[in-house]
């Protein structure tokens, strides 16, 4: 257990300024009526008390669109100019427990199997994740169901708001190096002060409506076919309008598309990758057909991937971290919790 420090809440702007000296700093900023992770600047409206940002740290590791390489065309000759992978180092401040876990999910997808995604790797190596325990989880949160401890979010550095102080503790070497760098502003503190706060957070997290979900036994691969063929999907998907809000608001959704943008003779063609959603009708559209023809298949793919396929590929790690953003944002109130519950029933019937 590395050392714990604290800093008065009203001195936080100095902490931000010092952090932002030699790296970019992103933290929850309320602008235009919405809370988003955005680049810090001296008169930005930082808000650490907002429970959830509308966007997620995923934006900073997997930008909404990103040029892979540019191609110059001269007549029929082609020249490819790759982009170097290095990006400016940056820190993300105020990541909650669910988003930290989401970054672990993305790490699995992009880094754990060969070939490693170089763009993603460059950003992860350059990032310092400063988590913040959420002081008051709300109804739509169910990180507890996935065994996450909202009171001790993890990441490179963990911080807690306790009274009028911010407690800070490095977890990894990168985190300790950052705490060291900031030590000028910090004063020593006793980790014990937080026990009351942590207990309180855990207590609230456990009593949320969706805190207890039948996930403990997990979904094993034998259930896959039974769940896939369950006729529940027929009724689940009927309200879905295929808009992709759930996938773009989700911290773990990582599918992307690769497209070309023709910038004309002077700029040449830039091939870029951009977010894509399995809920879009053209996600698996091929010239001669589409293996997911109706919204039912697409809807099923999203939830089966998060609750079944991802865990099968990555030792039981669920593709969902219980942040509740899709519950809050779905235009027609479709809900992953309802699907988890009914899939659990399918599992019982299959095994009974």
């Amino acid at each position, binding site marked *: 257990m590395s050392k714990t420090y604290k800093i008065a809440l009203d001195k936080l702007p100095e902490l931000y300024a010092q952090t932002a000296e030699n790296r970019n700093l992103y933290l929850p900023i309320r602008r235009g009526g919405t809370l988003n992770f955005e680049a810090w600047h001296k008169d930005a409206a930082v808000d650490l008390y907002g429970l959830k940002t509308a966007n997620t740290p995923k934006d900073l590791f997997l930008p909404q669109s990103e040029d*892979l*390489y540019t*191609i110059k*065309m001269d007549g*029929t*000759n*082609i*020249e*490819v100019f*790759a982009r170097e*992978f290095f990006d400016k180092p940056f820190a993300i401040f105020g990541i909650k427990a669910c988003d930290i876990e989401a970054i672990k999910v993305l790490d699995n*997808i*992009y880094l754990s*199997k*060969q*070939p490693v*995604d*170089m*763009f993603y790797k460059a950003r992860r190596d350059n990032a310092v994740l400063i988590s913040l325990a959420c002081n008051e989880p709300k109804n739509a949160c169910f990180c507890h169901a996935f065994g996450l401890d909202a009171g001790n979010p993890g990441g490179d550095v963990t911080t807690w708001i306790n009274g009028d102080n911010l407690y800070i503790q490095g977890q990894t070497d990168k985190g300790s190096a950052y705490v060291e760098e900031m030590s000028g502003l910090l004063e020593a503190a006793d980790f014990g002060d937080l026990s009351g706060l942590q207990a309180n957070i855990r207590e609230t997290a456990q009593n949320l409506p969706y805190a207890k979900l039948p996930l403990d036994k997990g979904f094993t*691969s034998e259930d*896959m*076919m039974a769940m*896939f*063929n369950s006729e529940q999907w027929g009724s689940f998907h009927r309200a879905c309008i295929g808009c992709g809000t759930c996938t773009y608001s989700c911290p773990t959704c*990582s*599918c*992307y*598309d*690769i497209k*070309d943008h*023709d910038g004309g003779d002077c700029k*040449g*063609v830039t*091939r870029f*990758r951009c977010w*894509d959603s*399995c809920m879009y009708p053209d*996600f*698996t*559209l*091929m*010239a*001669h057909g589409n*293996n*997911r023809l109706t919204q039912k*298949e697409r809807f099923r*793919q999203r939830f*089966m*991937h998060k609750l*079944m*396929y991802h865990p*099968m*590929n990555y030792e039981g790690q669920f593709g969902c971290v219980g942040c509740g953003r899709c519950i809050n944002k779905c235009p027609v109130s479709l809900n992953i919790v309802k699907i988890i519950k009914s899939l659990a029933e399918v599992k019982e019937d299959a095994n009974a």
Partner: protein
Amino acid sequence: MQMPDMLIPQVGIITDIIQETPDVKTFRVVDLKGNKAFDHMPGQCAMLSIPGVGEAMFSISTSPTNTKYMDFSIKRVGALTNYMHDKMNPGDHITIRGPYGNAFPVDDANALKGKNILFIGGGIALAPLRSVIHYVFDNRDDYGYVDILYGARSVADLVYHREIEKSWAEKRNTNVFLTIDRPDDAWEGNVGFVPDYFKKIGFSTDKVVVMCGPPIMIKFVLAVLLEMGFKKEQVFTTLELRMKCGIGKCGRCNIGDKFVCMDGPVFRVDELDQIPEEF
């Protein structure tokens, strides 16, 4: 298999273009220095692209033993393929990256090596099989009898027709069976669908089957195979799905827990039963 760098392609040159059938052309690709862009195994694919038009996955129809170039037989279907058919001429550049996906287990003793092989192809799907067939011909002694059963809509739609009759049919211990769907007076051979012709010939079950074709053909042929006593473990096929990254990240070819671009496109038929019916 050397893993390609992060999606960045190399530039290739189309040395020449052969019009195989009214809607299929074979594009011969080499790298800028004129030799083979990269090594690959039979059944693997590569991503070809024309900047500003699009990028798509195509199976490599030449064998690894051919070290001079790579062939891609491409049917005119979508925007990219139409552009390639209409606008590309020999000498034009194209970007290429790969190889992607697994390969037919040609060197695996309890799969294809040393076994009699029965190739079943339908229409354009003969292209990936051609890679394996050439590989088998170039290492003829490592394999037993070879039977090739190939069908297409019409005579004009038979891909590599001359090559099949001139070289394949003449190869040692090799029988070739060709069929077309509808009668055509310029055609003396068999007329009928591949599954029916297969039943008519009645192959012995001491063979490993390598099968590739449109989904409906696969369904019927598989039924006949099982009916005649073949076991699923003896049958290999490839899945054709939309692929974008080719390195198991972009989520497009994800069926069940498998990524077709990494765990496939070659699957043994019994493995297919573990994959949800979405391909």
